[in-house]
């Protein structure tokens, strides 16, 4: 609640107390009884209403009884003829939002005001009525509202129109009947009426594409008075352009001239809106962009912070798709780095990081260094993420960028910020081999003085995996062993594990690591002592834990091959006895499997959270899961897992999606099933597959799902054999078979007897793209030259008539399932030729690079030249085969 302010200035007397000092709800409600006086004191009543408003605006709430009492008293004030008080009464009724049974008390007074000769009574009565009304009352007053929309007084018309916008949410069928009146109001000479009418008309017609298109066509030709209405019109125009994008012929874009014309409007708001609309056009060309970028550039040096912010925010977005178009603004943006408004400065920095070229990196980093000290952590994280992408874009500049990251790592900052920096360094270490050693040393220095246990342990884990593989692993030992002396038990235990990993991987260090581990045997914490004992025994090779060197490495670096949840449950159930706990008794079956959802989230590189190698963390998770199933454990290394393919429509009784796991000689379908019926329990769930359209596949095994209770996802698997290394394709039709048991919703218990049932699922296809992994190539040209023309295969194809070049390019990309490089999947609209670069790994771990050159003629015939380079000529041929048969 507001406190009185005592200030030492000239207005001291004035400031001594607040008119609401010590205000208390109960007392104000008592005061509200003056509303019931036979002789109303308008001034006093207004004061009490102000107090009530103050209470409400402070977040105070009235109980139902209190609100009803105040409401009934307030309605008495309609008797007063005092204009100021009447205005307050209108506001108070709206604030109290009376319930349906109370509304009736004021309806007649408001209806009277609505038909009053005083326009202002009419406008306000409309607003109040529409705020508190329900459907039945609305039909009674509809006639008046329609009249009000076309009222000569703009205030009355606006009141009715804005009411319409609100009522459309609750009573759409009634408001839609006002279309003609609203249409008339759009032509109003009053600017605000036009603005409100346009907003309402668009909302009424928003689902009718043709009507919106007509509305836009007629208004863009006519005059729109209000800048606000003009902004709306620009937005509606963009929508029409977007929706008609697919059907228009190549050539000039419809309405572009209108948007471009708006760039010369006198209101900044309109200019900006038009500029933004142009930058957001689908497949916008450089020629179309230029005028928009020019006005945005002018805004960058505007004296108004809002304009600067809007401009830099838009340019930031443009920089993602058309970095070259924004480079002209770089000088203006550099001056924004010192902008007092930190949001603007951060946007400027991140835009510059996207548009800068290799030569400007150093200069930019110098500017950013000064800037970092005075922004909040949340902005710093944005900058760190931008620097990470910049470094991946210009790997040669890793030194400067890595130094920058290590410097900011040493400065003050919260956990999230530090984690962002550490994650970035880890990603750079993984993606840029040259950056590995310096990066690891930066991390080592960081843990010397790191206050976050989580980060220390994560870094130690990462060091254990990467450190032993560097040229001089011994230099990391000092940093690690220091942790054993100086840290808390959690970090000490991590450090012990890391030391053991060095000992296992680097023979020359083994004796020295032994000495260090022995010292840890006297640690004050039992976990640290236990680990030291265990590792000494493992590494010492006394045979009681593991036997060979390989076993040692598997033990240290391999993962636990049981699900952690199951291990936890088993450990909890274990009762201390003579018999030791046996890890083999832990079930390996995974009960619920949210991988499908996780898959969608894990697209971003995740730094420390992800395992150290391999392109995608989910593949590792899948691999671990599949190898834990005895039937599939001898299939070898998992090559690729597809994204989940839905086999059911949304919101059906059973939701099923499938993930295709590709091995060298096998394919495993993992069906993720969810039972969405609370009254059912499914048992022995299996998918029966008809593979008659997949001749090269032979079913070799399956794993049914024992039980599928309500809302707990589970999986059933099916394995097929296929010829080795061959990208066999085929179509599979699926039926879900199960035994269904009724569940008593009150007790949650299932009946004993069940009924066999089945449920038809959509078909599933294994396609050539399933055998190709996407691969990131940082510099395509280098990779292309390195690969050389030895295994090159070139051919030309006619792709027939296509709707657009864009469509042809996307079709080929999805057919091959390879990763588009250097943004070449984006095609300028209207262009007649395009080159697209793709990278991938073919089954058998063979790297493949593809260069596609497309051309389209006036009759929309698309021709394509396909150049494939790979490490194996048969693979190059196979890619051609996929295209030829696709």
């Amino acid at each position: 609640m507001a406190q009185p302010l005592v200030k030492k200035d000239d207005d001291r007397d004035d400031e001594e107390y607040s008119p609401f000092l010590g205000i208390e709800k109960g007392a104000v409600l008592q005061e509200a009884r003056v509303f019931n006086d036979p002789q109303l004191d308008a001034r006093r009543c207004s004061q009490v209403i102000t107090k009530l408003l103050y209470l409400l605006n402070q977040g105070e709430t009235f109980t139902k009884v209190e609100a009803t009492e105040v409401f009934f008293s307030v309605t008495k004030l309609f008797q007063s003829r005092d204009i100021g008080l009447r205005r307050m009464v209108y506001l108070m009724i709206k604030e109290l939002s009376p319930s349906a049974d109370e509304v009736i008390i004021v309806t007649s007074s408001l209806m009277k005001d609505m038909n009053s000769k005083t326009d202002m009574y009419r406008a306000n009565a409309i607003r109040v009525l529409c705020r508190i009304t329900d459907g039945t009352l609305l039909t009674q007053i509809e006639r008046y509202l329609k009249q009000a929309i076309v009222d000569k007084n703009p205030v009355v018309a606006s009141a009715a129109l804005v009411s319409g916008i609100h009522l459309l949410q609750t009573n759409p069928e009634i408001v839609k009947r006002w279309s003609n009146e609203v249409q008339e109001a759009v032509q109003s000479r009053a600017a605000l009426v036009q603005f409100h009418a346009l907003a309402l008309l668009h909302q009424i017609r928003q689902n009718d594409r043709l009507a919106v298109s007509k509305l836009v066509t007629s208004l863009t030709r006519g005059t729109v008075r209000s800048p606000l209405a003009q902004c709306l019109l620009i937005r509606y125009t963009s929508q029409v352009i977007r929706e008609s994008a697919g059907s228009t012929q190549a050539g000039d874009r419809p309405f572009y001239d209108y948007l471009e014309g708006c760039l010369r409007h006198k209101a900044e708001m309109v200019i900006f809106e038009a500029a933004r609309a142009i930058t957001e056009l689908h497949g916008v060309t450089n020629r179309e962009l230029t005028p928009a970028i020019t006005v945005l550039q002018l805004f960058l040096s505007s004296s108004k912070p809002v304009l600067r912010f809007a401009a830099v925010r838009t340019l930031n977005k443009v920089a993602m798709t058309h970095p070259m178009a924004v480079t002209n603004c770089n000088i203006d943006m550099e001056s924004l780095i010192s902008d007092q408004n930190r949001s603007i400065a951060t946007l400027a920095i991140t835009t510059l990081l996207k548009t800068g070229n290799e030569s400007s990196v150093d200069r930019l980093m110098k500017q950013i260094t000064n800037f970092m000290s005075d922004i909040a952590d949340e902005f710093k994280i944005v900058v760190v993420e931008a620097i990470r992408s910049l470094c991946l874009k210009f790997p040669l500049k890793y030194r400067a960028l890595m130094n920058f990251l290590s410097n900011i790592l040493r400065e003050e900052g919260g956990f999230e910020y530090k984690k962002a920096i550490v994650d970035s360094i880890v990603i750079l270490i993984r993606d840029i081999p040259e950056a590995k050693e310096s990066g690891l040393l930066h991390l080592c220095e960081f843990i010397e003085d790191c206050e976050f246990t989580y980060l220390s342990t994560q870094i130690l884990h990462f060091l254990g995996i990467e450190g032993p593989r560097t040229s001089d692993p011994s230099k990391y030992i000092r940093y690690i062993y220091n942790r054993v002396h100086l840290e808390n038990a959690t970090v000490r235990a991590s450090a012990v594990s890391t030391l053991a990993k060095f000992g296992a991987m680097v023979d020359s260090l083994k004796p020295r690591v032994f000495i260090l581990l022995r010292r840890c045997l006297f640690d004050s914490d039992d976990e640290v002592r236990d680990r030291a004992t265990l590792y000494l025994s493992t590494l010492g090779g006394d045979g009681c834990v593991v036997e060979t060197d390989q076993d040692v490495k598997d033990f240290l670096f391999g993962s636990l091959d049981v699900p952690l949840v199951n291990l936890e449950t088993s450990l909890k159930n274990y009762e201390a006895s003579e018999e030791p706990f046996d890890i083999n008794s832990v079930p390996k079956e995974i009960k619920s499997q949210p991988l499908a959802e996780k898959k969608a989230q894990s697209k971003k590189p995740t730094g420390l959270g992800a395992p150290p190698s391999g392109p995608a963390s989910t593949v590792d998770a899948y691999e671990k899961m599949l190898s834990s199933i005895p039937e599939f454990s001898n299939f070898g290394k998992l090559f690729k897992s597809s994204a989940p393919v839905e086999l059911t429509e949304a919101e059906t009784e059973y939701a099923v999606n499938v993930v295709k796991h590709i091995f060298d000689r096998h394919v495993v379908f993992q069906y993720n099933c969810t039972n969405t019926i609370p009254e059912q329990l499914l048992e022995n769930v299996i998918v029966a597959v008809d593979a008659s359209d997949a001749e090269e596949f032979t079913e070799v095994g399956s794993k049914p799902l024992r039980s599928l209770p309500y809302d707990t996802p589970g999986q059933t698997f099916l394995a097929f054999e296929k010829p080795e290394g061959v990208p066999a394709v085929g179509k599979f039709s699926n039926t879900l078979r199960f035994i269904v048991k009724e569940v008593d919703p009150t007790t949650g218990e299932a009946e004993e007897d069940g009924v066999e049932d089945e449920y038809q699922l959509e078909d599933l296809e294994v396609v050539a793209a399933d055998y190709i992994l996407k691969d990131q190539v940082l510099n395509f040209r280098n990779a292309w030259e390195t690969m050389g023309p030895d295994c090159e295969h070139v051919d030309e194809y006619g792709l027939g008539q296509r709707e657009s070049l864009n469509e042809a390019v996307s079709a080929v990309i999805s057919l091959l399932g390879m990763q588009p490089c250097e943004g070449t999947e984006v095609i300028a609209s209207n262009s007649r030729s395009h080159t697209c670069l793709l990278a991938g790994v073919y089954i058998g771990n063979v790297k493949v690079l593809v260069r596609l050159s497309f051309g389209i003629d006036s009759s929309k015939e698309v021709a394509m030249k396909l150049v494939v380079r790979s490490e194996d000529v048969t693979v190059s041929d196979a890619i051609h085969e996929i295209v030829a048969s696709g």
Partner: protein
Amino acid sequence: MILAVLFANSEGNILVERFNGVPAEERLHWRSFLVKLGADNLKGVKNEELLVACHKSVYIVYTVLGDVSIYIVGKDEYDELALSEVIFVITSAVKDVCGKPPTERLFLDKYGRICLCLDEIVWKGYLENTEKERIKRMIRLRPPTEF
């Protein structure tokens, strides 16, 4: 939609708080977020100089007027430019009612009038009136002069 209009004194205490379409449980979060935003950035800012920020898909435009800081939060069509229009109308109306950039005391003295102005300017999340002269007349239930 204009999600929130918030007035606070120089110590961050709320003077007026009006939310539209913001669930009750999120309001406290917004209140403290905005007040912190102001505390971090509004020091030394001139009267009516606008500051702007983005939080998720929501825009915030805020400023100081005398002893009072004003925050407007919007989304969708109410982006930073539309909000700067809204805040301009609000600051002009408040100055008009108070006769000058208000001290906290003056603001509270004119509280009722200010509430009426806000009622004319923002109606359940939509901008309704934009001219201070018209608003001045309308809170006294007088028709606009141009009519």
